[in-house]
C-alpha cells in the first residue's frame, strides 16, 4: 500500500517549479535497501558548540524507532536537520536512497513525505479542528490550486476518518485554541496523518498528557506502526516500554549515538545507566 501512496504523491506533486519557486515532486521514494532515512556523520555546531557530533543513524521502512537521551543530547536538533529547519555543518541526510534532505526546505521535505510533531503542540489556534485537518491534507499546496480549491466528498471523508481516529469529531467546529492540551497533541498527530507521510517524527507526543490520554496515544502509535515509519523522541520510560516492544531504541548523548538496540539491552548498558538512567 505504500506504493499507492507513492503513486499519488508523484501525481499530486505536479511538475516542479511551475509556480516559480522550485518544488520537488518525489519521483517515487526508492526504499530498495529497506531503510527510509539515513543520517551519516551529521554535525551541527552553533558558534563552536556542537549540538550534533558526527551522528549516524538509519531507520527502516515501517519501523517504529524510539529515541531517548538526556536534555541537550541533540534530539530536537536532529529533527530540525531532518525537517530542513537547520542545515548541518557537515554530513549527509538522505530520505530513501535518492532524496538529499540537506538541499530542500521545510515545505519541500514535508511534501516529500516527512511529517513532524513538535514538542509543544503547535496547531493553528484560530482555525477550527476541521480547518486544521483540511490545511494539513495531502494535496497540491501551491498558490493557485489553493486559491481555487474546493473540498471534494472523498477529501471530506478522509477528514472524517481522521477525526474518528483522533476522537475529535465532537470538537470538529471548535477553534483549535480551545482544545485541551491532550486534544491538541492528538489534533497535531491527526494533521500529520492527513499529510500521509511515509516517515513521522514525533517529539515527546505524550508530554503533559493524563495517563488515560497517554494510554490512548500509545495505542494510536501502535496502530500506525507498519503503515508509516515512525521516529519517537520520548522521556517517559514507561511509555517507551509500552510502544517500543522489541523494536530498536537509540540513545543519544552529547550529539551522537551512545547505544542502540532493544530496550532491555539498552537499559542494561552501563554507559547508558551512567549518563541517563543512572540519575
Amino acid at each position, binding site marked *: 500500500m505504500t506504493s499507492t501512496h507513492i503513486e499519488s504523491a508523484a501525481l499530486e506533486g505536479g511538475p516542479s517549479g511551475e*509556480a*516559480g*519557486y522550485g*518544488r520537488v515532486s518525489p519521483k517515487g521514494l526508492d526504499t530498495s535497501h529497506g531503510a527510509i532515512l539515513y543520517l551519516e556523520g551529521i554535525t551541527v555546531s552553533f558558534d563552536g558548540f556542537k549540538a550534533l557530533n558526527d551522528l549516524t543513524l538509519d531507520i527502516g521502512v515501517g519501523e517504529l524507532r524510539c529515541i531517548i537521551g538526556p536534555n541537550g543530547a541533540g534530539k530536537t536538533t536532529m529533527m530540525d536537520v531532518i*525537517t530542513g*529547519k537547520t542545515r548541518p555543518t557537515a554530513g549527509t541526510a538522505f530520505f530513501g536512497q535518492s532524496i538529499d534532505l540537506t538541499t530542500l*526546505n*521545510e*515545505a*519541500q521535505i*514535508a*511534501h516529500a513525505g516527512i*511529517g*513532524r510533531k*513538535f514538542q509543544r503542540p*503547535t*496547531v*493553528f*489556534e*484560530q*482555525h477550527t479542528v*476541521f*480547518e486544521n485537518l*483540511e*490545511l*494539513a491534507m*495531502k494535496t497540491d*499546496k*501551491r*498558490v493557485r490550486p*489553493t*486559491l*481555487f*480549491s*474546493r*473540498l471534494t*466528498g472523498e*477529501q*471530506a*471523508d478522509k*477528514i*472524517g476518518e481522521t477525526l474518528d481516529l483522533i476522537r475529535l469529531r465532537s470538537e*470538529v*467546529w471548535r477553534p483549535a485554541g480551545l482544545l485541551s492540551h491532550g486534544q491538541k497533541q492528538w489534533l497535531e498527530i491527526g*494533521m500529520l496523518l492527513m*499529510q500521509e507521510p511515509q516517515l513521522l517524527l514525533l517529539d515527546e507526543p505524550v508530554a503533559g498528557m493524563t495517563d488515560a490520554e497517554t494510554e490512548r496515544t500509545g495505542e494510536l502509535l501502535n496502530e500506525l506502526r507498519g503503515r508509516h515509519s515512525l521516529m519517537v523522541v520520548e522521556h517517559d520510560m514507561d511509555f517507551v516500554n509500552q510502544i517500543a516492544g522489541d523494536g530498536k531504541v537509540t540513545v543519544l548523548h552529547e550529539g551522537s549515538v551512545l547505544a542502540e538496540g532493544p530496550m532491555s539491552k539498552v537499559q542494561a548498558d552501563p554507559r547508558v545507566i551512567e549518563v541517563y538512567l543512572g540519575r
Partner: protein
Amino acid sequence: MKQTALTDLNLLARRPLFSGRVWTALAVAVALLALLPLLNLVFPPGHALHVSAYAVALLGKFMCYAMAALALDLVWGYAGILSLGHGLFFALGGYAHGMYLMRAIGRDGVYQSDLPDFMVFLDWKSYPWYWSFTEHFWYAMLLVVLVPGVLAFVFGYFAFRSRIKGVYFSIITQALTFAAMLLFFRNDTGFGGNNGFTDFKRILGFDITAPGTRAALYWITLAALAGALVLARLVTQSKLGRVLTAVRDAESRLRFIGYDPLGFKLFVWTLSAVLCGIAGALYVPQVGIINPSEMSTETSIEMVIWVATGGRGTLIGPIIGAGAVNGLKTWFTSVLPEYWLYALGLIFVLVTLFLPTGIVGLARRVAARFQENKA
C-alpha cells in the same frame, strides 16, 4: 449513518461569501452612498435634500482611503504582515494616473508648452523616457496596476525569501517609502518635486471640475470599493485565506505541513499593493493634487491606524475605520483647530488599549451581549 455525517461535514464546510443580512446591509450602504451625488445634482442648494458638493467630494476622498485601508487589512489583518509602506503604493498609483492628467492639460499650462510647467522651468525640452505613452489613458491605467504591483512583487520576493518578518519587515517598508519620498521630492526626478502634480484640467476630455465628472468619479470609486471588498472577501474565504491566517499564526508549522509561505505572502502582498495603487489613482483626480508627502511616514502609519480603529482582519472594519478617523479629523480640524491633535492622539491610544479588535470587534461584543440578555 457515518456516510451521511461525512457529507454534511462537507456541506457545513462550505460557507457563503456573506450571510444574507450582510448582503442586504452592504446593498443598503452602497445604495445610500450612490444616492448622494444625485441628491447633490438634482436638488438645488438650500433644498432640504440637497447634499453639498463638499460632502460628496469628501466622501469620494474617504472611499479612496477606505480602499487603501481594505488593501492594508488584507496583508496585516490576514497574513499578519504589517506594512508601513502602503502610502508608497497609494502614491505610485496616484502618480501614474497623475502623469496622464498632466499630459491631458495640454497647452493650457502657464507656459502654453506641451510639457508640464515644472519641466519647463527645469529647462527640459522633451519628456524623459519614463513619461512616454502616458498621454494614453489606457497606458496610464496599466501603469496604475503594474507599477505598484511589480514593485511590491520584487520587493516582497526578496524580503519574504530571506524570511524578514514582523517589525523588521515593517521598518524596511518604511525605509523604502522614505527613500521613495526623498526621490520624488527631487525636482530632477521629473515628477514635479514638492509641488507634485496639480491644476488638472480634464480627464478623457471631460472637464475635471464639472459636477457631472465629479459624480462619475465618485460612482467609479464606490464601485471599485465595493468590488475590492467582494474580491477581498472571496480571497479570505478561500482555502488560501485560511493558509494566510495560518501564516499569521504559526508560519513555521505551516512549512512543516508542506506549504511554502513565500508564494502565499507574495500573492496577497502584491494584490494589496495593486488595490492600494488603484485607490491612489482614484484619489488624485478627486483631490486635485498628488505630491510626495503622500509617501511620508505619517501617511502610511495613519493608514495602519484606520485599519486598527475599524478592526483588523474584518475587511468591513478598515472601511469603517477609514471613514471614522478621517471624518473625525475633518471635523476636529475645523471645530478645534488648536487642540485636535490631542483628541486624535488620545483616540489612537484608547483604541489600541481598549479596542484591540476595533469598532467592529466592539460591535460584535455588544451584539453578543444583546443575545445573552435575550436568552
